[in-house]
């Protein structure tokens, strides 16, 4: 080896020694608390899905209760007012949803699609989802109803 190139060898030796010390010195700082299982991070991702699923279930159930409590005469305003009260829990309002009312002969279907995302921020990732709901009432709101106004 060229004598001038020998300086690279010194860098390598000192670099290796320094890297070894740094690795052992700081490795413990990154050790997670508790046991680390195979697939633990992946299970955390699925648990985030479940958390979001529970919130979507809450919205679906809130819409169902709201539809049961609203009267046929003032369905739209009462439904959306009730829904609004329930959605405060998730910091949403009924105005955050595009709500459509589809009436057939013997039932009315109400579908809501959120314009605002539910956001779940975890240590390594963020999960965002637009919640939806779909409920039915077993009577048809006719054309004189306010939903068609």
């Amino acid at each position: 080896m060229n004598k001038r190139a020998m300086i690279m060898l010194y860098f390598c030796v000192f670099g290796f020694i320094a890297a070894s010390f740094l690795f052992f010195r700081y490795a413990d700082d990154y050790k997670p608390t508790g046991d680390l299982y195979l697939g633990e991070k992946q299970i955390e991702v699925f648990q985030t899905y479940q958390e979001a699923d529970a919130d979507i279930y809450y919205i679906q159930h809130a819409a169902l209760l709201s539809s049961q409590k609203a009267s046929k005469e003032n369905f739209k305003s009462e439904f959306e007012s009730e829904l609004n009260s329930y959605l405060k829990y998730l910091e949403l309002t009924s105005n955050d949803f595009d709500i459509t009312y589809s009436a057939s002969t013997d039932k009315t279907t109400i579908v809501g699609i959120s314009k605002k995302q539910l956001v779940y921020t975890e240590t390594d990732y963020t999960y965002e989802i637009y919640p939806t709901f779909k409920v039915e009432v077993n009577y048809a709101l006719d054309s004189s109803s306010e939903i068609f106004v």
Partner: protein
Amino acid sequence: MLNKKGQSEDVFEYILVSIAIVVGIIVLTMGHNYKEFSVDNAMQTISADSSDIQSFDMSFLGTDLKNILDLQVSDEYTFAELISRMPDNYPDINDKSLFEGLLDQALISNRLSCDEQLFNILNEKLDQVYSDNWIIFVYSDDEMIFFCSSILFDYSKVSSAKITLPSINPNNNVDVVLEVYE
């Protein structure tokens, strides 16, 4: 033959390599003898402790709870709809129809529990996965207002799942908890 300058450079390299060898031996000896400096210990920070994996059922109890909530427990109500009506019937009963084959009420504490008919509907689904080792609680304002279980003794809890549901009163949500024991 090297000149004087070349010989002095060689001596410096010998010294340097000797120091490096000594330091290397010390590092390797520490890694071998002291657990805190072992490579295994350091590698645990980036790899799993063992080849064990967590139980899938126990990690995803929330899915089972959601399916249980969707069970049709009477002609009128799903289990979730029944739970939403519980705060209105605790401690005083307002809707007596809920106590005809669905709910029961303890005499002294007024706490709600499941009637045999409701228990059988829930147990038919839960028994397949958790045998008789399950309990369902409902909390309103952190107070337990309902429980349903066949467990008579305290066992060690394995896992639990919680879902928050709206009740008839929009200002009073309820927490539904499924606990599984072994």
